[in-house]
């Protein structure tokens, strides 16, 4: 039993190290996707840390065909409360959206075909979320955009979606 457990731990450790080597990691993820899902990645905030904030804006097409103004979905508090060092549930939204935005931008850089981008997981997550979030019954269609900015960088448009019918109007 001891040898079995030792071998199991050793293989996880070896895979943990191998997954940090670019070429090997790609090969392992292609050939053993399920297994690699369980191997930890430890290169957080490296090699390039996240240096931008991502903002989600949306606008709608009204029944008369007019475009509404861009509105922001606010998820980042202006200032983190002092107790966030122990209790910080808002990071579920902020980290979730950050990961989705990163993934969507990666997809849009990788593929030219809008069909590939529109059927990607991050795109569908945002569309599904906004379709329910937007309550204005006057809107028939929706479009969203992702803006990047920080205290060092002025806002820049990073991604603009297609226009999609809102589910409730189908």
């Amino acid at each position, binding site marked *: *039993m*001891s040898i079995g*457990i*030792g071998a199991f*731990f050793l293989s*996880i*450790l070896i895979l*943990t*190290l191998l997954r*940090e080597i670019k070429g090997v990691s790609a090969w392992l993820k292609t050939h053993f*996707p399920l297994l690699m*899902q369980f191997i*930890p*990645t*430890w*290169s*957080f*905030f*490296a*090699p*390039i*840390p*996240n*240096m*931008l*904030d991502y903002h989600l804006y949306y606008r709608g097409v009204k029944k008369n065909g007019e475009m509404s103004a861009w509105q922001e979905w606010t998820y*980042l508090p*202006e*200032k*983190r409360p002092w107790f*966030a*060092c*122990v*209790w*910080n*549930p*808002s*990071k*579920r*939204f*902020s*980290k*979730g*959206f*950050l*990961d*989705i935005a990163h*993934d969507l931008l990666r997809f849009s850089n990788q593929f030219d075909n809008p069909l590939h981008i529109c059927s990607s*997981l*991050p795109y*569908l*997550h945002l569309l*599904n*979320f906004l379709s*329910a*979030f937007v309550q204005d019954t006057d809107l028939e269609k929706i479009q969203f955009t992702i803006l990047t900015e*920080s*205290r*060092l*960088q002025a806002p820049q448009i990073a991604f603009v979606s297609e226009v999609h019918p809102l589910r409730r109007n189908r």
Partner: protein
Amino acid sequence: MNFFSWFATVEHAYQATGLLLAIGLWIAALEDLHTFPVFQGEGLLSWKISRLIGKSYCQGTRAKIIHFWLNDLSLKIGVWMRIFGSMALFVLSALNLHSPLLLILLFLGTLQMYMRSPYSLDGAHQMHLIVLLGTSLGTLFGSFPWVKELCLGFIAAQLTCSYAISGITKLCSPVWVKSSAVYAVFSTQIYGHAGVYQWLTRYPSLARLSCWSVMLFEALFPLAFFVPPLGGVGFLAAGLGFHLANALFMGLNDFLFAFIAAYPSVIYFLMKWGSS
């Protein structure tokens, strides 16, 4: 060193790990409950979208099993189980009792969140899984020779890998080596802090110092096992300070308890090798 020599027995190392792990798991589970709408049908991390990730999640018998385990109701049950399970783990650990079944259930509950969506997870989730895997197997097969120590060794090795990999990757990155990484991170709202950002702007040498301190601490962490025990404990004290600063100024509260839960394993080996 008297306080640290308390960790020199396997039982005490497991007890301290259980207590710290329980606190981290409890906070994480309560946060998941508090933000549960994010996981529901119309939420940002909705299961109906997340399950489109691969064929095995959508079609066939395997998909049915996955859906049964990861749907909204099962997830909510899992979150409640983690809340009560972590409370039970704290009480049992305080009494120096170990339940492999409880640890396995907590492992499965944490894995459920991990499998449900590739988004919104971080290093703290991974470390929780590593510590839960190690302690589960250690208590389940603890009667076999060396297994309990082997499991502590696995936790300590993963903690060492986590710091060393992160540090070495940073040392290979121009953004970190040129000392602009910390300044840029603190310029954001998501992980930044207005006060710290102002200080770094006013005193650029602080940005350089913090970049190099993080890189050197992380990359050199494996040395903790090759210096006298007091030096090793010094590395852990630096790690504690690092995670406290991250929690205070970056909002990374979950890293604090998740990573500290792996420290008793390291102290155990420092004390053991230091006394032999």
